[in-house]
């Protein structure tokens, strides 16, 4: 048995549940008499909904296949060898479930080395090798092809990427070392760093070809046939592949520098993966591939044993799996159909909601408001947004006609809502107003209609309390911008029944939102945590820490934006309002900042001015601030803020605001854009020891978002 085989056998023992990929070797006669050819097909034996992955046993199978092909190549029995995938899938890389199980640096190193040892044999064959990217290719799937002499890609490929950095890894089976040497450092940085950090952006077949990753592109209908015909021509010397010369001078360094800039702007140095990948890309300038492979192995092992990757995989599983099966949601069999939607209010939020319901549900949507002018404005907004979609070819004219015909406005709630199944209100955030609105709706809507509120901070139970049928009231809390942020907090009031809740979850699914069930508690999840977080920043500023120090203190978390920039986005007035609400419920922990109140009173939209192109403290705001004399260091600020967040989450879990810490993290990722490398936030609080310090215990069991014990 070869060392590689032994290595993989060891790894495979750790991962008994691997979905094993076979590597079938089949021989064929190439057209034009080009000779006998060995084609390896990667296939896990399942349909396209279960994409082919590489675990240790899968790599061992590929190793055996390559051994066979190697022998035939050496004996002159074949003129070339190729590798392709089952229908619609090439291969989507390492099996993450296997990565999660790894406990030691040594095992992690073995996985990296095992992949390298197998893949690089392809480039060492005595005959040219060809990868035919017939379908989805990611990570190790892309990399196995990079070890081949030539590549073709199907124009029909929907997804092609090196997503490792997105998860907290590096493309460690040759990606970092080979790709810049194939397509140049700038393009490689774009694929490995930029796309990954840009919400894991996928390439289409055409881009794979245009970037120079593939040497030829063919349409999906006869991709493999045309690839093999092309192969025959290449082998006969009729087609010569010319690749662009790679600039190994200053351009290389500039590309790496640009990569660092992108990484800084996205993760602010807070997650190591992008930087490790860039180090390897930087070193790849020498063209010494083996040194690059060794560096990849080391980076992989370090990252696999590090918290960021475990958090990344945890976060990935939350948004891929938990988000699809919301914890605590009643059986979907209880859900009632929703064939018409009412929206109370025709302001901006209401109009955005109307647009969302319209586009996703494609049912009649009626907007009501207190005067015709507001209604016309609301319907006009929806029509204008539909026209924008049409202009961008996101929808065609027929669809635009259909959607426009479905949205109407009515001054008369009775006329608008008498046959609605779901009515959502987005009126002024005041209990009396909302209770009044619900009473009016209840008087005219059918008995089964769901009454939903988009309140961000008021009690859903209280809002329902004066109705005849409070059991059909649910909170339906969206996040701004509604079209972008996936989170939808679904609030169960005291009397909300299962059928209403099931209907709400059914609607959320059709809206393509990530629905999380939350208790009717002040400010629910995201706003409560963000307000506590921002409140603590505001507190230290009020006490005397300079604004810049307070802001910089939380930079190492790698949040999408600084606290005060976020405040500006939300609007200081709204921020103040939420803090006042929470202050009423929890006066000990939520203070109302006099400085923030002053800023709001002065009519300022934020703390910063951007005249120099960079955010600088607005002198007018600076003049308003009345600070104390307690000046904290960045470390002290960070500790206070993180302690506050850990305390608040601990209390929320005790109160049963959500089922588990996982739901808190899912909310923060999908509603506040908190990063994967923090795992939302609880994995980070656990690994930094904050949870232990504040609550005496971690939020998550070992192995959930960390290296298993």
């Amino acid at each position: 048995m070869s060392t590689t085989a032994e290595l993989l056998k060891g790894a495979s023992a750790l991962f008994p549940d691997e979905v094993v990929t076979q590597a079938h070797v089949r021989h064929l006669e190439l057209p034009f008499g080009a000779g006998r050819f060995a084609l390896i097909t990667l296939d896990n034996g399942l349909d396209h909904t279960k994409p082919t992955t590489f675990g240790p046993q899968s790599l061992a199978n590929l190793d055996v296949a390559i051994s066979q092909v190697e022998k035939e190549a050496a004996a002159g029995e074949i003129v070339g060898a190729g590798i392709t995938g089952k229908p619609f899938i090439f291969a989507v890389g390492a099996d993450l479930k296997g990565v999660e199980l790894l406990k030691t640096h040594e095992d992690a190193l073995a996985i990296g080395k095992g992949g390298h040892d197998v893949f690089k044999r392809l480039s060492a064959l005595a005959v040219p090798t060809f990868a035919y990217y017939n379908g989805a290719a990611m990570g190790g799937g892309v990399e196995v092809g990079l070890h081949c002499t030539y590549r073709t890609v199907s124009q029909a490929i929907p997804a092609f990427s090196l997503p490792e950095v997105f998860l907290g890894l590096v493309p460690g089976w040759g990606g970092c070392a080979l790709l810049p040497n194939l397509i140049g450092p700038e393009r490689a940085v774009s694929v490995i760093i930029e796309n990954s950090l840009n919400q894991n952006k996928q390439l289409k077949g055409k881009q794979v070809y245009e970037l120079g990753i593939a040497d030829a592109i063919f349409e999906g209908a006869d991709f493999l046939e045309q690839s093999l015909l092309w192969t025959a021509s290449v082998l006969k010397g009729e087609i010569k592949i010319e690749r662009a010369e790679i600039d190994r001078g200053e351009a290389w360094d500039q590309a790496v520098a640009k990569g660092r800039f992108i990484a800084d702007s996205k993760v602010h140095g807070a997650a190591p993966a992008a930087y490790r990948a860039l180090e390897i890309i930087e070193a790849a300038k020498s063209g010494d591939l083996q040194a690059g492979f060794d560096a990849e192995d080391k980076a992989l092992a370090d990252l696999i044993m590090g918290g960021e990757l475990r958090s990344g995989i945890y976060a990935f599983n939350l948004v891929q799996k938990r988000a699809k099966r919301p914890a605590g949601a009643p059986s979907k069999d209880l859900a009632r159909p929703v064939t018409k939607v009412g929206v109370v209010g025709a302001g901006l939020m209401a109009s955005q909601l109307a647009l969302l319901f319209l586009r996703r549900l494609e049912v009649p949507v009626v907007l009501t408001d207190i005067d015709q002018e507001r209604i016309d404005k609301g319907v006009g907004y929806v029509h204008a947004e539909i026209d924008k979609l049409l202009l961008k070819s996101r929808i065609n004219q027929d669809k635009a006609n259909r959607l426009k015909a479905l949205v109407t406005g009515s001054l008369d709630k009775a006329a608008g809502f008498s046959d609605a199944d779901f009515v959502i209100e987005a009126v002024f955030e005041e209990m009396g107003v909302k209770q009044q609105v619900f009473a009016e709706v209840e008087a005219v809507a059918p008995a089964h209609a769901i009454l939903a509120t988009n309140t961000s901070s008021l009690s859903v139970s209280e809002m329902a309390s004066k109705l005849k049928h409070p059991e059909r009231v649910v909170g339906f809390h969206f996040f701004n911008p509604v079209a972008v942020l996936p989170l939808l907090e679904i609030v169960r009031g005291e009397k909300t029944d299962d059928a209403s809740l099931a209907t709400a979850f059914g609607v959320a699914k059709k809206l393509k939102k990530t629905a999380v069930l939350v208790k009717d508690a002040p400010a629910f999840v995201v706003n409560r945590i963000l307000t506590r977080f921002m409140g603590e920043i505001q507190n230290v500023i009020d006490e005397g820490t300079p604004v810049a120090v307070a802001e910089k203190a939380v930079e190492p978390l790698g949040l999408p934006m600084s606290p005060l920039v976020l405040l500006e986005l939300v609007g200081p007035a709204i921020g103040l309002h939420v803090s006042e609400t929470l202050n009423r419920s929890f006066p000990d922990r939520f203070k109302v900042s006099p400085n923030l109140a002053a800023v709001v009173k002065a009519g300022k939209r934020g703390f910063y001015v951007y005249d120099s192109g960079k955010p600088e403290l607005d002198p007018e705001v600076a003049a308003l601030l009345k600070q104390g004399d307690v000046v904290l260091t960045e470390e002290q600020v960070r500790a206070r803020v993180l302690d506050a967040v850990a305390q608040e989450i601990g209390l929320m879990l005790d109160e049963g605001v959500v089922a588990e810490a996982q739901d808190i993290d899912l909310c923060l990722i999908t509603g506040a854009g908190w990063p994967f490398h923090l795992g939302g936030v609880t994995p980070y609080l656990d690994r930094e020891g904050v949870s232990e310090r504040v609550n005496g215990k971690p939020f998550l069991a070992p192995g959930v978002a960390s290296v298993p014990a």
Partner: protein
Amino acid sequence: MPRTVKEVVFVDGVRTPFGKAGPKGIYHETRADDLVVKAIRELLRRNPNLDPAKVDEVAIAATTQIGDQGLTIGRTAGILAGLPQSVPGYSIDRMCAGALTAVTSVAGSVAFGAYDAAIAGGVEHMGRHPMGEGVDPNPRFVSEKLVDESALFMGMTAENLHDRYPTITKQRADEYAVRSQEKAAKAYADGKIQQDLVPVSVRNTNPDVGETGWGLVTADEPMRPGTTLENLSGLKTPFRTHGRVTAGNAAGLNDGATASLIASEDFAREHDLPVKMRLVSYSFAGVEPEVMGYGPIPATEKALAQAGLSIEDIGLFEINEAFAVQVLAFLEHYGIADDDARVNQYGGAIAFGHPLASSGVRLMTQLARQFEDQPQVRYGLTTMCVGFGMGATVIWENPHWEGK
């Protein structure tokens, strides 16, 4: 409105290699629609001067129009092949003469001026759709003795044809079959066949069949080069005890697809498309269903009469070899020798296979190649027998004809 009938030409034709039907066949895991799509795409690729938007029709034949051969396959195959959505399509069924009928149907429309250019072809995946799948013959056929009970079983109709021509013995049929295999092998050796085949990638997941994974089909699977009379003499006669029809002197059960481009001669010239054959006449005829193999004879009589030609004017014959006896009956009728050099020069369906509704275009593609090589020949014909008692004949003129 004054109207001029247009000359119709066969621009080009291609086909997939033919496979053996059944779980061990090369196309067992390949869809029927994919086969014809690949043929259409090859046709378009080979004729880059043809703007796909100028195709006025896609007529695709299949005998069993269900599943992946259903859903108006002429339309769906066009979309799957990447033709613009503006190009319409329809399905055709005349059993074995499906593709031939697709050609004559669109040819009629071209001559009438309704189309400038059209794709005509056929597909039959007899592995996925065995003969007789889903049929429901009206009981009156039997109760009122409208047809003989053997009419639905092609092998039995072939035995019946032997009865009609007592001089056509099993020996003669076997000898004919051996020659068909020999001629086909020679045509392959001479590279006459491969140039009109489109390679097809095929998947196999069954280790009992052979190597698993993706492979590439570049040649006909049914061929049995080196077949001898001895090999054939011992074969069973499954349709009648002590009968004459065997698996060796008949076409098998096969999978495959064909596609051709038919256009007005003006259109072809204007767009610099090849003109491989010029349509002279076509005809269909009905005969007693229980001797359906007799069909080509009356169909040819009609086609010759329309063209004002006699059988002596025909320099090349492409006769579908559903059964050796059916070819021999035709030759016997016209007094042509069994081994006449003008007949099936590349061999026939006994060697290549006969995926029912696709075969007509194979005959034409082969005749077109023979025209190219033999400019001394002016006229040729393609003919086939059809289930339920029919014959179909198309007479073609060689555009390469050198004159008297």
